[in-house]
């Protein structure tokens, strides 16, 4: 809400500068977001009110806080005496939605622009001056927070008002010229035939005040906050009136507001009250809150001067009703629907004393050893491992769209569907990502387009799908490599381009760090965004948890990526389930090892992994390690063949092995390898 500094000072005679006032209001919980000079000697304060402070959406409401804070009196505006005489005809059909309705009839004496001072004040508070009558209703809205509405009495069919729910499909043209088709949930102000206003939200065009208006009906009412809010949102019509009713307008101010407007109308010679008033509704029972002073001090952790507390609470309209033993009972004013229990009052007490006065203490109480969620710890472990392997972590948004998913050839898992955003902000963000592949490829493109071409990135994030009725959030890890894996250096000017083995090596490293190297295998088919021949599935303990491979060239091209891109995306839950915290100590060998090398020529189709696994299995317990140290194909070995250089390490935990015994062991193993894989020793 925008409010004039000078206007506030006319109500409470404080001396502080606008800047100081802004700071003080902020510390009272009425945050001043902006402060601008206005005219020659005024300032406009932009007060950002929290939704619970409907009582402060007015000059008087803010002034009430200021007067208590500075200990200064405040001047209340003058109201007209209750008029006597015949009352206008009003019927309220739904008191739940309209707890109070008051009406006073006035005769219009002149319709003209308001005096300058009033126009200035309205403009300072962000309202557009219209004419003397509408301006006075708006003036009271700003001054007291009570929305009012003036109807052209002669435009009301039957000269009466009925407050009722709209009929389905009933129509109204609003002051702002929009035509609405209403529903039964809307509360309307109607004449005998039709709605003339959308209650608490906006008046109708037909019955608005015009040059022709001779008699007017001034409405001061209180409407159900939730109902006003629903109607206002249903049609997207937000007004100064609906803003205030949504936040709750006190029961009492309906009549006070009207009488204030009548006083201003008569005083300015704009209109004259004719006849009496109508006032329908039943005042709500007054509410009280009892406080245990010692308990409140404990709760806030501060000592309080209760005489001061009581006087300040009274200042903001919360008087002490009674004192019984230690308990204090306070009356809650009708304009503070937000105050319900002792905690609410504790906030008022702390606020008025100043949050600055609350001391700093440290929680005592029970201390239990904290234990983080395993998922948090595991993500941290993954992050540590992957960064130590030279990868940088990215953070991308959780949304995607069909175009991106199609572009990378994404296929949903069997029986799962996408999750859509109901109210997306743009075409880009319509789908919750079922995979991080598109966002990672977009990150690569962003960098490559800026000539940052050597990239080794990862991200840990959630992906989302629907499985039947069930929403599935999977935490995944994605790793992408492109360009050089070893950067250019003067001693090695070409650097080293990464390939699939850098990626599989990272997976192996990760598996080794998680102590489950033995449990992970590369097998089966890869995902569609990869070249089929280069891709493989990832398995852990017999369960597929992801895939790895080189991104297919059409997908890469769609993301402007020319260098090969290597990508793996995997579920981290299976990894987490299988990961081991500790390794069991394996005794360091005490006796020397004996090495033997073998150059084995086999058909190209025989997989190296199979040969190594076979050797490990058949080598006997003295064979400690089998390593592939060379691999080549070409003219030298003949077409369709490949040569593997394999290193064997024999070692005993009990003694030094002799050459003879190793020769014997090795010869037997080589024979088995040769016969099993139809190979030849080179």
């Amino acid at each position, binding site marked *: 809400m925008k409010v004039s500094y000078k206007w506030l000072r006319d109500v409470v005679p404080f001396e502080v500068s606008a800047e100081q006032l802004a700071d003080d209001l*902020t*510390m*009272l*919980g009425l*945050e001043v977001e902006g402060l601008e000079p206005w005219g020659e000697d005024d300032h406009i304060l932009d007060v950002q009110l*929290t*939704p*619970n402070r409907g009582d402060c959406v007015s000059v008087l409401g803010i002034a009430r806080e200021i007067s208590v804070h500075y200990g200064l009196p405040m001047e209340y505006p003058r109201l007209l005496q209750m008029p006597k005489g015949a009352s206008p005809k009003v019927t309220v059909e739904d008191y739940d939605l309209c707890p109070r309705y008051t009406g006073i009839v006035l005769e219009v004496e002149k319709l003209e622009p308001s005096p300058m001072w009033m126009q200035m004040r309205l403009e300072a508070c962000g309202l557009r001056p219209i004419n003397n009558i509408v301006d006075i209703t708006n003036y009271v809205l700003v001054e007291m927070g009570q929305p009012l509405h003036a109807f052209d009495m002669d435009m009301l069919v039957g000269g009466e008002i009925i407050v009722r729910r709209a009929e389905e499909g009933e129509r109204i043209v609003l002051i702002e010229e929009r035509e609405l088709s209403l529903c039964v949930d809307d509360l309307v102000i109607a004449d005998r035939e039709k709605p003339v206003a959308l209650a608490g939200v906006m008046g109708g065009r037909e019955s608005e005040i015009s040059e022709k208006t001779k008699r007017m009906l001034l409405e001061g009412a209180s409407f159900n*906050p*939730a109902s006003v*809010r629903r109607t206002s949102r249903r049609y997207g019509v937000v007004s100064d009136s609906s803003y205030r009713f949504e936040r709750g307008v006190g029961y009492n101010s309906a009549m006070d507001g009207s009488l204030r407007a009548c006083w201003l109308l008569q005083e300015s010679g704009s209109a004259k009250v004719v006849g009496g008033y109508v006032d329908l509704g039943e005042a709500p029972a007054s509410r009280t809150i009892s406080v245990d002073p010692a308990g409140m001090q*404990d*709760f806030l*952790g501060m000592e309080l001067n209760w005489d001061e507390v009581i006087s300040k609470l009274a200042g903001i309209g919360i008087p002490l009703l009674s004192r019984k033993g230690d308990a204090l009972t306070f009356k809650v004013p009708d304009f503070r629907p937000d105050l319900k*229990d002792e*905690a609410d009052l*504790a*906030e008022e007490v*702390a*606020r008025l004393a100043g*949050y*600055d006065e*609350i*001391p*700093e203490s*440290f*929680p005592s*109480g*029970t201390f*239990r050893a*904290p234990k*983080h*969620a395993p*998922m*948090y710890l595991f993500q941290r472990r993954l992050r540590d491992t*992957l*960064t*130590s392997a*030279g990868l*940088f*972590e*990215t*953070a991308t*948004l959780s949304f995607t769209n069909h175009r991106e998913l199609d572009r990378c050839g994404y296929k949903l898992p069997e029986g799962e569907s996408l*999750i*859509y*955003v*109901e*109210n997306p*902000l*743009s075409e880009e*963000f319509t789908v919750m990502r079922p995979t991080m592949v598109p966002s990672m490829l977009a990150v690569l493109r*962003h*960098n490559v387009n800026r000539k*940052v071409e050597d990239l*080794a990135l990862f991200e840990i994030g*959630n992906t*989302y799908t629907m499985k039947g009725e069930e*929403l599935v959030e999977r935490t995944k890890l994605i790793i992408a490599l492109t360009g050089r894996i070893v950067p250019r*250096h003067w001693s090695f000017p070409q650097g080293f381009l990464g390939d699939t083995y850098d990626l599989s090596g990272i997976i192996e490293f990760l598996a080794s760090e998680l102590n489950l190297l033995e449990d992970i295998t590369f097998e089966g088919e890869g995902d569609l965004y990869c070249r089929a021949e280069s891709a493989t599935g990832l398995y852990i303990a017999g369960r597929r948890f992801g895939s790895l491979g080189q991104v297919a060239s059409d997908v890469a091209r769609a993301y402007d990526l020319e260098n090969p891109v290597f990508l793996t995306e995997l579920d981290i839950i299976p990894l987490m389930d299988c990961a081991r915290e500790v390794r069991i100590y394996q005794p360091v060998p005490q006796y020397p090892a004996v090495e033997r090398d073998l150059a084995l020529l086999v058909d190209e189709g025989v997989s190296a992994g199979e040969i190594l696994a076979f050797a490990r299995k058949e080598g006997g317990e003295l064979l400690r390690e089998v390593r592939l140290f060379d691999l080549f194909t070409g003219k030298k070995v003949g077409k369709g063949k490949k040569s593997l250089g394999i290193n064997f390490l024999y070692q005993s935990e009990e003694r030094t092995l002799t050459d003879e015994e190793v020769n014997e062991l090795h010869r037997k193993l080589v024979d088995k390898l040769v016969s099993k894989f139809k190979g030849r020793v080179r």
Partner: protein
Amino acid sequence: MREKLLALLERTAEEVSGAQDISALEEVRVRVLGRKDGELTVIMRSMGKLPAEERPEIGKLVNQVKAQIEEAISARKKALSEVKAVEVVPDLTLPGRRPRVGRAHLINRVTDQLVDIFYGMGFEVALGPEVESEYYNFECLNFPPDHPARDMQDTLYVKGGGVFRTHTSPVQIRYMLEHQPPIRMVCPGRVFRADVVDASHSPVFHQIEGLLVDKMVRMSDLKGLLAEMAKQLYGAGAKVNLRPSFFPFTEPSAEFDIVCVNCEGAGCSTCGQKGRIEIGGAGMVHQEVFQAVGYDKYDVTGLAFGLGIDRLAMMMCKIGDLRLLFENDLRFLAGV
């Protein structure tokens, strides 16, 4: 025998001085002095066959030859290593070969930093789903339907029901439903709002919230806890400032600021002339929330707080544009 020894000495001396590197030298040493079948060793072993009167003289000679060879080898070894040292004098103006180590994303590093601060005060991390029901995201947290409090958070809805959580508070609800008091927990995570991407808004950002429930938790404890956090983040001189505010799930509620470390409250460009940096919201847990999770049967009070990690990270590293955090330019990722 004598001639044999002198010839060996001469030849070995030549070979030693001719050795161009340590391994060649080692080769010579093994061939001559090797314990098993070094040439000199073999000669020494055959001394037993000599007539007794020749033995002392030859024995003496053998020792002399051995000493001379050893000396020559060690001198050559020293010379060779000196030559080598001269060859590799490094030019340290050349860039070194740095180890390749990556970096976690700034958001996660700041998250971990905050988690560690609170871990030290007994708080444990809990996580929860990012797509939530309105029940956990709003109703349990005392957001009445049709109340303007719902406008405080522009919500993204899931087609067919549910919301993208607008805060990590539903994790607190889920945690309380599963645990008995006393409680100390923090919940970091992604949250969503219907905000268009610009320099200070994003539909996705990150929060960490904390909850402490116990007998006799005081509002002053909240202030003390946040002050401790500020000190660990910004140093012993850091101060927090609470301002009254409103959240449906806390009463009393507060915004908390850190008094600007740069200008100590006077106002400067770092804090946008405010003298304080707005960090987050906090308060004492609302009774309605305790009721929703069945905690009203315990004689407990609670405090809760939450802060935006992205904004904190931006302030810590003086980053002017939120978009940089999600753009993932390698130069940014490696630079902060």
